[in-house]
């Protein structure tokens, strides 16, 4: 007898995913935003946010996560991140005379908004790294059940 088809994984995995997703995203945002005070920065934080979306994909299935952030939105986010780095570099060239010049004011140390343009660069890198790893994972299609049938015409 056939029941309703369940997508994704068991109920235990879904419950734990519900509890843990918020923590992962907040911790990833903390690692990115405070990258100039504590260890971390744009790269680990971006990969953490991508891993949060990958966890939703593994637990709930592709359709649920594509209704949250679709493949097109991920690709656009990737491009926006790469363009933001280049545009900020050119703004630095226009203001300071060298490409990627640090043009924002440097406040007092140990504050959130010290260190010039480092925080904006960390956000751009987080967008770029997170979105690109997320769309590569969607393209690898880890959840589709592969039914392999050999093509008999190609025996010779």
């Amino acid at each position, binding site marked *: 007898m056939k029941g309703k088809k369940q997508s994704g994984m068991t109920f235990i995995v879904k419950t734990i995913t519900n509890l843990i997703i918020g923590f992962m995203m907040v911790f990833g945002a903390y690692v990115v935003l405070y*990258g100039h005070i504590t260890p971390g*920065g744009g790269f680990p934080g971006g990969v953490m946010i991508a891993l949060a979306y990958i966890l939703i994909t593994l637990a709930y299935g592709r359709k649920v996560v594509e209704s949250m952030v679709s493949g097109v939105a991920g690709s656009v986010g990737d491009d926006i991140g790469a363009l933001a780095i280049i545009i900020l570099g050119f703004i630095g060239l226009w203001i300071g005379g060298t490409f990627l010049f640090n043009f924002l004011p440097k406040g007092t140390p140990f504050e959130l908004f010290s260190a010039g343009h*480092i925080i904006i660069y960390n956000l751009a890198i987080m967008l*770029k790294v997170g979105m*690109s*790893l997320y769309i*590569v*994972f969607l393209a690898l299609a880890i959840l589709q059940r592969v*039914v392999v049938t050999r093509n008999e015409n190609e025996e010779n």
Partner: protein
Amino acid sequence: MNEIIILHLLLVFMIIGAFVTVEIKNMLSAVISIGAVGFALSMMFLFLGAPDIAITQVIVEILSLILLIRATVNVDNVAIEEKGESVFSNRTALIFVGIILVFAWIAFHSLPSFGEPLMRVSRFYLIHGLREVGATNFVTSVILDFRAYDTYGEAMVLFVSISGAFAILRRWKREQDKDFLRIDREH
């Protein structure tokens, strides 16, 4: 002195783990043991005074494990038996490896002794970093202010490699008949 002993033990563990990865026949076991090597490497980075790198290595290791398991799980897990002769025999390979290791031992004596780095350029970054950049994490101030070109190049390399992975995984309509395996997908 304790630290140096811990570093030696972790590095011996990594060598044993790498040897297990290379020689084991089941592919899923090989992927799991390279995960163990990666986590031991992250612990070594923590003992070597690099917490930034330890965080990045753990996160990247998790993502690499997911990608590698995708490549090995849907298909048969057993590695292919090495049959037939290879181009170089085993004895020649061992002789060459022995010569390389002898020369490496001689070459490593000309490095500065372990634990006393030269730090000619980094002294400038440490002295002027707080006043010119204002960040208290000196690794971030090096990669995003003093050497921002390298980070810019890295973002572009990541962009190109992910676009390349996309271009490879895309399939055209008429190529589906030429594939050896016809894959039916269901959600």
